[in-house]
């Protein structure tokens, strides 16, 4: 884990309220930033509002940089998304456990993204080669299906891609769990990674449990610290256990989360 100020190399708008920020990073950081891990970010100035850093998934890393994709949800994310290239951002990370390294045993991998959950799911596509694999991406409307073309390109022939929207403005109309049900119908031995809003993850967990499918959920609980101290992100788990989403997660075993 590193604490540093990084310059914004590029700020690219992907949708009305979604931006991609490319930030400077040292090689050690880049090495540690594997799929599903995250950073805490705040603008590196002395202004105290917003006060706390905000968590964002590390979408991908390159030589000397990493990328986050930020959806403007409130003041903290709006502020970050509005920063220009050249401005400095305070970074803490990589944090969290990331997605498990799965054995390449030929079993298919299904990636399920809801809304901005794609940031986390994309990190899997950008850093690991699974074959076969499917990406199921649900969003409120077409405009929020960000990164889709890049993901298709990266995934190439190995990765099936399907999108679904709440309003039918792109792909099918409906919820991403419908796509998941259909996929698991065919790939009953698949393993699943999912990231998205709480209610979606709850549905995904239900589907996986009903079918006895193995999976992992990446949670987005509110965080104050990101490194296991404030106990703000704590998630109730099966059997009275509590997980700190920031250090025990954000990726937790499906079936164990009590929503």
């Amino acid at each position: 884990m590193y604490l540093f100020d990084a310059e914004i190399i590029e700020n690219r708008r992907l949708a009305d309220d979604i931006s991609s920020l490319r930030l400077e990073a040292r090689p050690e950081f880049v090495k540690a930033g594997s799929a599903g891990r995250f950073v805490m970010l705040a603008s590196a100035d002395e202004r105290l509002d917003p006060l706390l850093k905000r968590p964002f998934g590390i979408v991908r890393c390159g030589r000397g940089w990493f990328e986050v994709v930020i959806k403007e949800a409130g003041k903290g994310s709006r502020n970050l998304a509005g920063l220009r290239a050249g401005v400095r951002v305070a970074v803490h990370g990589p944090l969290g456990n990331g997605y498990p390294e799965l054995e390449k045993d030929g079993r298919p991998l299904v990636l399920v993204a809801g809304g901005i959950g794609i940031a986390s799911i994309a990190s899997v596509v950008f850093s690991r080669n699974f074959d076969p694999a499917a990406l199921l991406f649900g969003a409120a409307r077409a405009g929020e299906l960000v990164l889709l073309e890049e993901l298709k390109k990266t995934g190439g022939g190995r990765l099936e891609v399907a999108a679904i929207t709440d309003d039918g403005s792109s792909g099918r109309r409906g919820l991403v769990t419908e796509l998941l049900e259909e996929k698991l119908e065919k790939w009953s031995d698949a393993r699943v990674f999912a990231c998205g809003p709480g209610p979606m993850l709850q549905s995904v967990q239900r589907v996986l449990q009903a079918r006895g499918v193995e999976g992992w959920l990446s949670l987005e609980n509110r965080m104050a610290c990101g490194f296991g101290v404030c106990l703000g992100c704590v998630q109730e788990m099966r059997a009275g256990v509590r997980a700190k989403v920031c250090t025990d997660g954000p990726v937790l075993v499906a079936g164990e989360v009590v929503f």
Partner: protein
Amino acid sequence: MTDLKVELLPGLTLANPVLTASGTFGYGREYSPYIDISSLGAVVTKGLSLAPRAGNPGVRITETACGMLNAIGLENIGIERFLKEELPFLRDSGAVVVVNFFGNSQAEYAELAARLDGVDGIAALEINISCPNVKAGGIQFGTDPGSAAELVGAVRAKTSLPLITKLSPNVTDIVTMARAVVEAGSDALSLINTLLGMAVDLQTGRPVLGNLTGGLSGPAIKPVALRMVYQVVQALPEIPVIGIGGIVCAEDALEFLLLGARAVQIGTANFIDPRTAIAVIAGMDKFLSARGYEKVTDFIGTLKPGR
């Protein structure tokens, strides 16, 4: 280099006046990847209870303007696990350890004090009589001078360790509270704990926090903390006061010392940057050295009257 040593209490001298506040520094271990915790004035542990506590359900934190609300509900691993699993690490790391604790009743407080008495590696106890998130005990003790005094007296009887009482700011008259616990045997005072606050979510039409209300901390509360520290120091000049509330940089900490606080604790700022306490110590030295102070104690309490 200014000598930053402070004698917080007779027999308890700290390398510097910068402590980390309870509930914002875990059990110390969580911060060791980032800073040398033995270089702090002291580490104050997460508030401990007799039995482990699960804390509050639902959303536990939310940001407010220059502050945050928390309703963690005093989740902690309980005294026994702390003594077995965490204290040895702290001891080995060379950190000065202040144990913060609370109970659901006076008897629990007393039992905890007895259990902690004489344990090797504990420099002092900090009694939390002021957590706003526990309905059973906490809040009554923290806002009524009579019960606070009784509680402190019961704890005092069970331990020979230095006793610091952490006061709640949610009172009409902080000086009366301070006086009550000092007369009951508290050696020192920590102030302030969090202000009781609330947030609502317009989108859902519900309170943000699972617990409805929560404790407000961070820079937003610094003016209230400074005022209370000032009032208590003026009223009880002999009693060591630890200033807490909204400290994010050396200047903030120095403001408390100027008013007469003998030490400070850093809370919320640890979440923003785990290196804050170390930066505060360095900045304090720089500020005082530049002004020719040989010892931080020459600076403490040197507030001049308004003009």
